[in-house]
């Protein structure tokens, strides 16, 4: 407790950065028994967790309380009960210092109509407290980095969805915050745009030591960017941990891609003791094999039944299955 | 229970249809017999009418304004403020006008005056008294009907409800739900107008009735003489502001510029320029109706009124014209920001 008070004091004084940074290295977010009510509805229920610096995915079904959590971390909402610290700043008390340390990318468009791209990002810089010239310079730098070079002087109304998303990231990055809170950064992006965004986030997190809290519905995003994951459901924290550790390894499962009429092939598999778990009707089978199975047997069977084996992958549990499993355990 | 098509059921239906002497080819393709465009249209009217009530702030402000005006008029009536009877001369200090009239009569009844002189004096005093007593109607007309009602409440009620009818749907991006139904676009435009009229007419004409009812004798006379012009002005204003809602991106601001700036400027310009303002024709109808009761423009040679029938024709013609243009414009419009 004493240590926290010291930290608050440091933050308030705005000096002695060394100590607070040293602490940042241990925890970025530290929440204890956090709850939030909207009238009768409880959006967050007794949430407690500590996060080390790194890239964290925040998962949960619609209405699980993800957005509320982000807003509380940002100091836009106050928690109904419980305490928390973000980068050593207590939440709900010290808005200014807290929000300076955070870059927030909202889910909604959050544009200021009539501005040009560069002005929009520069305005964000100014609002964070940078001087006007410094904000303008930095805006151009960030926009170039985010590959919005050509769109800088266009009006925001003319931006496509992908450009808007990158612009929102730009305004969150302009003051070089140690922590990024991202609410659905890839929603509405086309595949190329999504890939580019995820690559950017990964680079920022891995090479430039930004801590990232990524709230999303797209589990692929988390797999691509994050090394640990938080799963919220109905305001409760269900699961926290590293992606690799949480997903189960399965030695006996395979995913097959078959081309051609698979009926006889499936029948034969069954006779060989292979269990067909799922067939999507377009040639993709998920199977569980008996022990001592050799994969060459798949080729033999395929050849016998005149179907083409186009794919064969070990079927470890992915994040999507993990997610479904965790939710199913809950209900 | 709806979409699962059943082969047998379909056959049974065709059989029953054939017995009803309708061959398969005649039945309109794909159109379930149970739908009816007219029913949909009436429902749209009802839905739009209800949705106007949902924009509660607007309705409350309108009703509040109306009630405020009505209670003020009621207070004036109770205090007999409509006639000049209690006016004082010099301003707010001297005796009332009625006391002056009595004074004059008292002076006249002094014994040294001649009988003829006394008679003339008595007649004069009586007529002054009469004018004072019956001055209520022109005063009510001028201040309440012309100033407060016609130049403020009527434009404001029409403006807020008519621009909101389409403009509000455009602003909240919900017009798409109507445009993606199988309703002809002119029908949508007219339905929303039909749904708008109960609100605007109810507020203006209903408000006018209320104002007049609490306005005592003068009010009743005003109601009898003026209601057609209030109705005509409402129709014209409604169709104009409704049209603005379909065309302008910020219809409310455009309408306020028109109603409280252009109307005021044009309506008070000398010469024929004022003939492009709606308020001018409404006033002409009123002057025409109440000419016998001493209500006329302050300076007819500058005001240049048209007669009542013409004014009515202009207002109704304008309504029809604006509706027509609006229907065509709406049918062709492609609302990029909406879809």
């Amino acid at each position, binding site marked *: 407790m004493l240590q926290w008070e010291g930290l608050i004091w440091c933050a308030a004084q705005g000096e002695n950065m060394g100590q607070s940074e040293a602490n940042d290295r241990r925890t970025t977010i530290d929440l204890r028994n956090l709850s939030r009510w909207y009238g009768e509805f409880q959006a967050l229920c007794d949430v407690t967790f500590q996060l080390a610096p790194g890239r964290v995915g925040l998962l949960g079904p619609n209405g699980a309380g993800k957005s509320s959590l982000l807003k509380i971390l940002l100091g836009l909402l106050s928690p109904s009960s419980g305490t928390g610290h973000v980068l050593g700043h207590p939440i709900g008390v010290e808005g200014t210092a807290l929000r300076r340390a955070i870059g927030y990318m909202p889910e909604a468009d959050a*544009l200021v109509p009539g501005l040009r791209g560069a002005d929009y990002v520069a*305005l964000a810089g100014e609002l964070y407290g940078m001087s006007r010239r410094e904000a303008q310079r930095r805006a151009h730098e960030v926009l170039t980095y985010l590959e919005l070079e050509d769109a800088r002087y266009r009006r925001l109304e003319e931006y496509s969805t992908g450009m808007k998303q990158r612009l929102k990231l730009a305004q969150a990055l302009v003051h070089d915050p140690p922590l990024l809170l991202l609410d659905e950064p890839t929603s509405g992006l086309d595949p190329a745009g999504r890939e580019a965004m995820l690559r950017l986030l990964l680079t920022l997190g891995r090479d430039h030591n930004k801590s990232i809290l990524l709230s999303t519905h797209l589990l692929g995003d988390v797999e691509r960017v994050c090394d640990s994951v938080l799963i919220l459901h109905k305001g409760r924290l269900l699961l926290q941990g590293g992606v690799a550790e949480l997903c189960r390894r399965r030695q006996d499962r395979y995913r097959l891609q078959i081309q051609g009429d698979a009926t006889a092939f499936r029948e034969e598999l069954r006779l060989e003791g292979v269990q067909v778990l799922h067939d999507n009707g377009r040639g993709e089978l998920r199977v569980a094999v008996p022990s001592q199975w050799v994969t060459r047997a798949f080729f033999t069977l395929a050849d016998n039944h005149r179907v083409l084996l186009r794919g064969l992958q070990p079927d470890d549990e992915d994040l999507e299955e993990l997610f479904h499993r965790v939710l199913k355990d809950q209900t | 229970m709806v979409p699962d098509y059943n082969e047998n059921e379909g056959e049974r239906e065709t059989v029953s249809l054939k017995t009803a002497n309708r061959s398969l080819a005649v039945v309109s393709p794909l159109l379930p017999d149970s739908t009816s465009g007219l029913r949909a249209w009436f429902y749209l009217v009802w839905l739009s009418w209800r949705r106007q009530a949902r924009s509660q702030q607007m309705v409350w402000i309108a009703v509040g304004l109306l009630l405020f005006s009505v209670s003020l008029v009621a207070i004036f009536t109770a205090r007999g403020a409509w006639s000049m009877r209690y006016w004082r001369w010099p301003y707010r200090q001297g005796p009332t006008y009625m006391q002056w009239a009595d004074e004059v009569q008292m002076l006249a009844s002094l014994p040294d005056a001649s009988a003829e002189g006394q008679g003339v004096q008595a007649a004069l005093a009586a007529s002054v008294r009469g004018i004072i007593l019956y001055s209520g109607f022109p005063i009510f007309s001028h201040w309440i009907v012309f100033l407060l009602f016609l130049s403020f409440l009527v434009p404001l009620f029409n403006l807020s409800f008519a621009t909101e009818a389409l403009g509000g749907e455009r602003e909240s991006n919900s017009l798409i739900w109507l445009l993606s139904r199988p309703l002809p676009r002119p029908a949508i435009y007219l339905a929303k107008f039909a749904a708008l009229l109960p609100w605007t007419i109810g507020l203006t004409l209903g408000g006018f009735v209320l104002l007049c009812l609490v306005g005592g004798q003068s009010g009743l006379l005003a109601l009898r003489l003026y209601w057609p012009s209030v109705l005509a002005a409402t129709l014209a204003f409604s169709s104009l502001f409704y049209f603005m809602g379909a065309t302008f991106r910020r219809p409310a601001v455009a309408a306020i510029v028109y109603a409280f700036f252009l109307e005021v400027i044009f309506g008070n310009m000398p010469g024929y320029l004022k003939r492009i303002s709606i308020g001018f024709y409404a006033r002409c109808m009123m002057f025409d109706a109440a000419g016998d009761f001493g209500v006329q423009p302050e300076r007819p040679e500058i005001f240049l009124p048209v007669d009542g029938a013409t004014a009515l024709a202009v207002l109704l013609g304008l309504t029809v014209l604006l509706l027509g243009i609006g229907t065509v414009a709406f049918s062709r419009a492609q609302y990029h920001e909406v879809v």
Partner: protein
Amino acid sequence: MGESLNRAATPELLHYRPWRGEFRTPAASIWPIARVALTSIFQKWMFWIIYILGLLIFLLFFFGQYLLSWAETQAGETDVQLGGWGRMNPRHLIALFRGFLKLDGSAESYRSFFAYQGYIVMIVLALAGSILIGNDLRFGSLPYYLSKPLSRWHYLLGKGLAVAVFINLMTTLPAIVLFAQWGVLESWEYLFERFDLLLGILGYGLVLTVTLTVLLLATATWLRRTVPLIMMWTTLFFFCRLLSAAMVDGLRFSPRWRLIDLWNSTSLIGAACLGLDLETIRPGNQPPWYEAALVLGGVSLLCLTYLIRRIRGVEIVR
């Protein structure tokens, strides 16, 4: 493996660069908010149409002053024919015009200029209110602003600053131009001798700015949507004006009723700032200026209280 392929495709020449620098106080972000609000309104053609309409009144005064002083130097002693109405000495005619429009560089001239601008300022503010606050709600800009290290007060102050600029752009600034013009046209001494007039103009502008800004912010945060805002705003400035005229001029009620017309009340205080006598103000029968000040102060205080409660109590962010 897929990653290695992607990497090969785009060599990253321009790396992300960290930034280290001093942050300024949150109060420094008020002006950027105001600046952005101003630009967003300056981009609307509707604003310029209304502004030009408002400018017409200014031009009337501006060229009126100029033409009259020019006419005075040109006018001879011979009478001129006026239509069919008769003959008149041009000097009398000029004096008549000056008396009517008060284009004589006196305090009365500036007061009537301010008063005439009332309608147009009102419409501009209705537009500005619906754009400044309404747009932020409609386009979701509010999370953008509030996720920055500034409080809601800074946000409102920024918007208020923008409103203040509009008000002064339409009233105080043209009035100062008129003041300077008179000095140039008539005599340089005027500028120094009647320095009190300049102070009066500034005072008048200050009164307008403070009351209208607070009032607009409160009504806009309360009503949010354009149409109700316009209804409320027209009620405050047209209905109350008509009502007060009907009560005092029509029905001969107490002149105190004029106080409900807020624009008239600002005009009374403005007149006091300019050192004018109440008797000269048209329409006549005005209440004393301190009563007007009391009313305006009360209204502003009410609006401020509402704003404070609103900001503390309810979450603006959905």
